[in-house]
């Protein structure tokens, strides 16, 4: 499975990549912001996208809106420190399939990934 990991923090990308590797997902492509990610999705065609909210150049919510505007259906999980309910609703409305609040345990991220993929598969 191909996973696109979008976070402006190299530390956070490394942490999430380590968790994904533990889960057996080794085909992971990194992007440092929404613009960087949009330039990569065409060639990479991910099966799952993990995206942070607050990033320079293009934030996560703008990325999600632009990605969905292309008619692309890939499952997206927002992984962010934004914990307010209004933010979660905004993300879901924009087209996010699931939401993980930082800080997260490896188990919590793993569960959300499994849950999201099974939901998308069933749809």
């Amino acid at each position, binding site marked *: 499975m191909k996973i696109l990991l979008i976070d402006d*923090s*190299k*530390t*956070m990308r*490394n*942490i999430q990549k*380590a968790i994904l590797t533990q889960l057996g997902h080794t085909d992971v492509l990194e992007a440092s912001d929404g613009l960087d990610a949009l330039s990569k999705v065409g060639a990479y065609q991910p099966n799952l996208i993990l995206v942070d909210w607050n990033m320079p150049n293009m934030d996560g919510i703008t990325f999600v809106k632009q990605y969905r505007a292309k008619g692309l259906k890939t499952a997206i999980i927002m992984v962010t*420190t934004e*914990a*307010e309910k209004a933010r979660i609703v905004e993300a879901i409305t924009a087209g996010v399939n699931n939401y993980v609040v*930082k*800080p*997260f*345990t490896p188990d*919590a991220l793993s569960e959300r990934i499994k849950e999201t993929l099974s939901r998308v598969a069933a749809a």
Partner: protein
Amino acid sequence: MPQAQTIESAVNPNLVTPFINSVRDVFDKMAGVKITAQEPHLKAGKSTGHDISGIIGFSGAVAGSVVVSFPKAVAERLVEAFVRMPLECGTPDFVDAVGELVNMIAGSAKPYLGGVASISLPSVVIGQGYTVASMSSTPCVIIPCSSPHGDFAIELCIARQAGA
């Protein structure tokens, strides 16, 4: 004769508790490290000295700064637990990890401070024998923290803004 300022009279506990919860939560979830917060106390003077300090600013409904300061050995062990690999102190990856830890502690506390606040980019100071002063008229509170890897401290110099 003026009365000595007590922590109860000087600091809103609603601004302290979210940081105690967030530092525990961040290290527990992200690094698998249990943190024990000791009794907060008012900081004497303006400066704090440590080897590694992460500084982040708050603006909006809550304004001020938060400094998380570690001795070098403690920072190295906590960063290793956080990123799941050893990082050499002072390298860009190490600085980035310290910045991310501070960002996450502040970001996790932010929703519980009341009102809409924003947090700045973190800055990280690395060295020896330096002091960090938060230039706030607000009394600063020190939250001493203990971990299996050693002690560190959070310094809060934040206050709710009038009308926010």
